[in-house]
């Protein structure tokens, strides 16, 4: 009797797992199904590298958006990575464990704040500061980078702290026993040992930045042009989809799905690199 219900339990679990995985596959298939035909018809090179996005004229070059996404993400990395890694090291190496256990979750609250709130603060606080001190419209690449940099901090800090804490204490003790200071130990030993994990955290943070939509729509300006200065207004790939989706039809809509395909592929590539880096950390 018990054997029969064991089999049933296994069947139910397998069915659930199967449906969950099918659902996830479905998403990938649908996006590709909607977007790929357009890419084949329009031409990948034209899509990715043409400069003009004018749906009403049938021009669907997303190059400006690609550069915008790349620049904004790069800017976010410049701001978020050093800050995040610095905080991660401070929390893991210099601060007593009891303090870390309170401060780390507190900082992780940054991740809980909805992206629209970030966008809003960017508009109300950050953009005027940029406008008044640096010129330009304020709603700019710079504003987007700063806000995104802050948004990816929790990701970078969280995963980096885990990597740093995973470095065996014996590594540190060996160094300290030779008379090195804590900083020297970090600099010469701990960084190297936790490098893969920290890099993985930055790559995952970049993935978040690339995928961010609402905050960027609110602060980056949304003009379709290739940025020449951080003060220029820009429109990212995600913003483009979100802004035009509600009224796009026909081939215009397909182009937006194709943009989704580009994002999808990009994220998968980023994730693969990150998981390779994370696996290297485990092996160490």
């Amino acid at each position, binding site marked *: 009797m*018990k054997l029969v219900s*064991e089999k049933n339990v*296994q069947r*139910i*679990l397998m069915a*659930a*797992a199967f449906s*969950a*995985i099918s*659902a*996830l*596959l479905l*998403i*990938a298939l*649908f996006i590709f199904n*909607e977007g790929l035909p357009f890419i084949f018809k329009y031409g990948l090179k034209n899509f990715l590298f043409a400069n003009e996005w004018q749906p009403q004229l049938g021009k669907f070059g997303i190059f400006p958006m690609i550069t915008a996404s790349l620049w904004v993400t790069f800017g976010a990395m410049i701001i978020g990575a050093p*800050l995040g890694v*610095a*905080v991660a090291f*401070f*929390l893991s190496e*210099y601060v007593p464990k009891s303090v870390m256990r309170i*401060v780390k*979750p507190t*900082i*992780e*609250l*940054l991740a*809980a*704040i*909805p992206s*629209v*709130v970030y*966008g*809003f*603060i960017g*508009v*109300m*606080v950050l953009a005027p500061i940029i406008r008044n001190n640096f010129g330009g419209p304020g709603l700019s690449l710079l504003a987007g980078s700063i806000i995104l940099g*802050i948004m990816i901090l929790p990701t970078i800090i969280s995963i980096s702290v885990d990597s740093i804490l995973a470095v065996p204490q014996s590594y540190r003790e060996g160094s300290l026993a030779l008379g090195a*200071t804590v*900083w020297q130990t*970090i600099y010469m030993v701990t960084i190297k040992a936790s490098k893969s994990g920290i890099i993985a955290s930055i790559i*995952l943070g970049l993935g978040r930045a*690339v*995928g961010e*939509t*609402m905050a960027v729509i609110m602060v980056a300006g949304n003009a379709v042009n290739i940025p020449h200065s951080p003060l220029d207004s820009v429109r990212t790939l*995600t913003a483009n989809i*979100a802004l035009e*989706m*509600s009224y796009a039809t026909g081939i215009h809509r397909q182009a*937006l799905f194709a943009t*989704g395909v580009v994002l999808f592929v990009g*994220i*998968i590539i*980023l*994730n*693969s690199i990150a*998981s390779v880096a994370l696996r290297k950390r485990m092996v160490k």
Partner: protein
Amino acid sequence: MRIHPRITQRIAVTVLSAATVLTLLILIFIIGFIFEKGLPVLSLKFLTSSPEDMGKAGGIFPTLIGSVILPLLAIIIATPLGICTSVYLCEYTKETLGTKIIRFGTDCLAGIPSIIFGLFGYIFFVVTLGFGWSILSGGLTLAVMILPTIIRTSEEAIRSVPKSYREVSFSLGATRWQTVKKVILPNALPGIVTGVMLSIGRSIGETAAVIFTAGSSLRIPTSIMDSTRTMAVHFYILAREGISAENAYGTAATLVIAVLIVNLSAYWIMNRFIAKRS
């Protein structure tokens, strides 16, 4: 000229602690800013009355309903599916190339931007299946969005149960399901619950996936096929269209309070568990 190690140590400590203080200040500023402008707007009337004049006046009651119903529906669908999937993957299958691919796939999907889920939800639920802009479309979309995260965090929680517990259970003549039910799930539960709560928090704050699937109707929904607006969407519309700065702040404050409560509860649960163990 070589700088004395003590001095570089000093500089390092100063820089690193400054970074940490800066980060904390940013967090405090964000919450403080929203609360300073938003808390005064909050009142029982604000939370329980409906918006008037497209949100320029009145309260946010329908959006509260939306913000509760959509994450609730998503959790109801995604949690059992996600936990069953992770239990099946961890305990009932051997580690093969197939399971590695599945794991990679779930990891990737956990990182896909919510706008893509919005696209999917729109084309699949709203249009193809004909559900229209509705609570159903929105709930289903959010469910697939949080499913990978729930699978991932559940898997981590299940894996962190020591192998020796399983061995002991089997050696005492337990079946696989008995081991899962009596030893593994109870011990993995806090990790699983934390993952679920964080997903709730994410759903409450979600905008891109919701606006294209649940719509933005301000009416109080009466059925699962009705469109609804969440607080996050409402806030976005108020802010972007410049309808009412005051109500925008009030909505934002409510939103932030909601996600803070959910996240802090998740931490509290995790801490209770860690304390009970040691």
